[in-house]
């Protein structure tokens, strides 16, 4: 098989639309254009039926009790905002303390920041060096004012999978609600809202080969019944939780993407794990000073986050410009700060600058992995030949012993 360029290995950022998803969506752009809220004619009924079927499929993906527990949103950022702000506002009489972690997505962290300005207190529990949050640390952070714990299922940078199961036992016992940002994990690692005692969960379609611009918030309806204050006012859609005309074609696509994962997710995860290990073994075999970031096993099957010591991440990405990956290097962010996730895991800043995230997905092939493995290995060697730090390392000079002048 011939390779097609550029090669996409950034499947944590977004995934390509599965052709089967597109096919399912198309009729809802044309003949089935109705508004799902139109209760008085066939156009509306058709749209509403499609949306209700979609709710059931998405509920099945996470083992929710009912499709009625699915609130459609514009994406996971909105879902995270709605979960945190909606819960904080509704339960303010009960308490004002939220527990989350330092490695959450900005949609959670920045929602917390805003809530702090409005009188909430937030505890940010750090992850360990392996990127895993210790459930005991969550337990210790709880107070009698705690109303919510918010933690991600899997981290978007280092792919570590958090012990939701154990955290769910703690929160349930303490009567605290548990919100899980499940965007990166669903369909790739087991996620069962009932078995894990999850009360709210954010989901996104475009991370699972569905369309962009649509997501959902799972809101538990019984034991306990979770209540929210809507953050978007209007026609009272989604049982009053989120106003706005539903994006029917995208919701249908979201459901189709979920259905594919229900059927093929486990096999796909195995395939991705194989490809990931193939790439990692190649680097380990051919390069010195390559460090795996995150946990060796407890991570998303398609995630490989590595630091190629003494080579800067953006410089390396430029050398492999026909391959789409991402880096924790400051140069890739507008803030000129390297990844806060890697830093909060205790990684040295230079190693954060040297990190590359390979995100393997459904459409990657073994040929692509072998090509990328060879290419990256060669370019790392070339860039190390140009790196003063590599030269020092080879002369036995510890770069930490040098007094660098920050600029």
């Amino acid at each position, binding site marked *: 098989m011939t390779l097609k360029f550029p090669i996409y290995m950034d499947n944590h950022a977004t995934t390509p639309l599965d052709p089967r998803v597109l096919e399912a969506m198309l009729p809802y752009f044309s003949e089935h254009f109705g508004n799902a809220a139109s209760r008085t004619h066939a156009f509306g009924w058709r749209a509403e039926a499609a949306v209700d079927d979609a709710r059931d499929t998405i509920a099945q993906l996470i083992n929710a009790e009912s499709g009625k527990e699915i609130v459609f949103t514009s994406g996971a950022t909105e879902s995270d905002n709605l979960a945190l702000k909606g819960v904080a506002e509704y339960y303010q009489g009960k308490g004002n303390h939220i527990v989350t972690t330092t490695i959450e997505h900005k949609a959670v962290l920045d929602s917390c920041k805003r809530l702090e300005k409005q009188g909430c207190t937030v505890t940010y529990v750090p992850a360990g060096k392996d990127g895993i949050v210790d459930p005991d640390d969550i337990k210790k952070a709880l107070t009698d004012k705690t109303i919510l714990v918010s933690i991600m299922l899997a981290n978007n940078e280092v792919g570590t999978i958090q012990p939701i199961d154990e955290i769910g036992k703690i929160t349930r016992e303490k009567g605290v609600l548990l919100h899980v940002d499940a965007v990166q994990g669903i369909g790739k690692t087991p996620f069962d809202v009932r078995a894990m005692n999850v009360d709210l969960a954010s989901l996104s379609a475009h991370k699972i080969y569905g369309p962009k611009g649509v997501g959902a918030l799972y809101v538990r309806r019984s034991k306990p019944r979770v209540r929210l204050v809507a953050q978007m006012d209007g026609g009272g859609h989604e049982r009053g939780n989120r106003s706005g005309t539903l994006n029917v074609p995208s919701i249908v696509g979201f459901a189709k993407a979920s259905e594919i994962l229900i059927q093929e997710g486990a096999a796909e995860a195995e395939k991705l794990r194989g490809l990931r290990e193939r790439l990692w073994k190649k680097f380990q075999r051919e390069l010195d000073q390559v460090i795996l970031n995150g946990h060796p096993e407890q991570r998303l099957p398609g995630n490989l986050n590595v630091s190629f010591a003494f080579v800067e991440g953006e410089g390396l990405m*430029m050398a492999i410009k026909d391959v789409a990956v991402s880096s924790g290097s*400051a140069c890739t962010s507008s803030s000129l700060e390297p990844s806060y996730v890697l830093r909060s895991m205790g990684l040295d800043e230079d190693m954060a600058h040297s990190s590359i995230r390979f995100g393997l997905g459904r459409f990657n092939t073994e040929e692509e992995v072998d090509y990328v493995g060879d290419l990256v290995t060669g370019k790392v060697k070339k860039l190390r030949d140009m*790196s*003063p730090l590599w030269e020092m390392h080879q002369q036995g000079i510890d770069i930490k012993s040098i007094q660098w002048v920050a*600029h």
Partner: protein
Amino acid sequence: MAYSEKVIEHYENPKNVGTLDQNDPSVGTGLVGAPACGDVMRLQIKVSDSGVIEDARFKTFGCGSAIASSSLATEWIKGKTVDEAAGIKNSQIAEELSLPPVKIHCSVLAEDAIKSAIEDYRKKRATRGNA
């Protein structure tokens, strides 16, 4: 962010990568930047008795713009007198490479590297003169 053609050209075919003997009295070495900031440049010059930079070498840990800035810097200073080289401004490097605002610090680092190498060379010469 797209790179300018000149950055790509210098990045793909960097000029004057390498190492000069740090202990050679006619060699000046500048090491600037910090690993924690994501860029470190080492620029070296070899100066003739008449004060002309005969050779220049660099090694850089950094992004494409940092590598291109150092490559361009070595190209420009070769054949210049030490005094002429000391007059090179970061803005000239940034302009030549069409660096976007977020990459201006790469050109600043290159100017610092030139100055630091010259300073090292002058210090060495002064010590030699006193000996």
